[in-house]
């Protein structure tokens, strides 16, 4: 572990969150899930590092277990 950046990077985190929310607004659950799938792939490729991706997946899985 250690390559994934979890410290906040956006100068305006609220705006970043909002832009994702707004992309989903008005979509059916189905269309929304499709959008997320494409977004995951686009962002994963942008990262381009299998270790970081694995850490990101682990973090996402761990968050689900806690909730």
């Amino acid at each position: 572990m250690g390559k994934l950046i979890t410290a906040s990077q956006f100068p305006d985190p609220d705006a970043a969150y909002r832009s994702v929310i707004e992309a989903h607004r008005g979509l059916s659950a189905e269309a929304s899930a499709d959008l997320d799938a494409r977004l995951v792939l686009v962002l994963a490729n942008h990262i381009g590092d299998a270790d970081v991706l694995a850490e990101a997946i682990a973090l996402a899985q761990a968050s689900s277990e806690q909730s």
Partner: protein
Amino acid sequence: MADPDIRKDPRKVVYRYAYRRAADQDVGRGARHPVVVVGAGPVGLVAALDLASRHIPVVLLDDADRIGEGSRGICYAKRTLEILDRLGVGEALVARGVTWKLGEVYLGDTLVYGFDLLPEDGHKMPAFINLQQYYLEKALVDRVSEVNGIDLRWNNRVSGLTLHDDCVELTIETPEGPYHLQVEWLIAADGARSTVRELIGLKFRGLTFEDKFLIADIRMAADFATVRRFWFDPPFHSGQSALMHRQPDNIWRVDLQLGPDADVEEEQRPERVLQRLRRMLGERDFELEWVSIYRFNCRRLDGFVHGRVIFIGDSAHQVSPFGARGANSGVQDAENLAWKLAAILRGEAPATLLESYDVERGQAADDNILHSTGSTDFIAPRSAAERRLRNAVLGLAPKAEFARRMVNSGRLSTPTIYHSALTTPDAAPFAGSARLGAPVPDAPLETRDGSPGYLLERLGGLFEVLYVSDGRRPNTPEDVKVTVIGEDLIDRTGLFAARFDTRPGSTYLVRPDQHLTARFRSFEGDKVRAAMDRALGKQ
């Protein structure tokens, strides 16, 4: 090769062979043979031919008396063609087959991805040919009758075996009743439903996929280009995948995904099949040659060697057809095994050399299963979430290069690079495309008198040293053949130099299966000797 007698029900005979009584059938307790191969499919035939080329006599048993029944492979990869060429049938098969290199992948009716296998210049064999499996088997059976040392027995079905420390006892059923054989080494090339495997009671580890696929060969005079075409969700076969690929004689392979719930009986009814094909092909004239329904397995035995029984091909491991990794990997199993078994039988290597067959071909099987599972998961996603991600890749493919590289309609067979104890690690760096543990790359090389040819056809199936001329003639061990590049063979194109990253004095040790096992920047007889001992398992 003569044209086959293909009947209207092509699951039946293409070529028929006669049962003949063998002298062994009159030997009460059973005659003894060094090697018996069970199964005269492509893999068993290659094993027998390769062993015979190394002067090991082989009895080859097949439970049928014909070629042509059952499922059929069509795509033969470059490495397989190189092996077939060494065994004397490669050129005729390439001439008979359809050489191809282009692929197209569609989503609906939109082209999302095209590929060109872009074969490098200066290789004797093409990247791929398509050819009906019965032509390959016929060529190999013909070759068996041309060479010495193979006793091919049709209608000989293994029905029992007993494992001993020093041999395997076989019971074999024939039309004239059973007989017995004792065999030092038994090679099981008897396919996915291996009788030998069942008699020993060995189990597979891996996956069976739920989706069913319709596979059909159709005869059709069409002017389509020679391109492997694959569709996800095509208009003519909604929600599923489809594949179309050319074979010789105006035969086309069509593969239609039917989903997990398809009714196998219903889907094989000719009217039903014709209706599906009609949607794909429109009003074009075509005839149905062969139809089958498949479910795919990606699985293997834990070990390929069990005492004196050795599993090769589908009896050892199975993959889905997307990627052409079935017959191709089986032929490479046979090649890997043949020289090792021959060395053991001649007393040149310890029996423990067979462990390297298990390791090296186990690596290849894992590699093939990984790729084949990935392709099958992409083509037939196992859950709604997997389907969503698959469709996300296809949706992004026209817009983004990264997604095109994720589109997976089959990753085509290439040789696995062995990480093997037989290989001597590099002491000095080498660039170029030659890799330790991989088949040496081919390159054009002329003889001294100027006649053209290729490296791989000059390699005779023995341990060979390729030595790059520096004006000396190295003093080599007696049993090693040395070829001096620049004297015995001339690298006029410079492709050998580029692919092997040569300098004057560079020395390459090639195994009998044409894999690179050691290389040095200068020739030293004791190092070559040690590398050869290592490659023979004499550590």
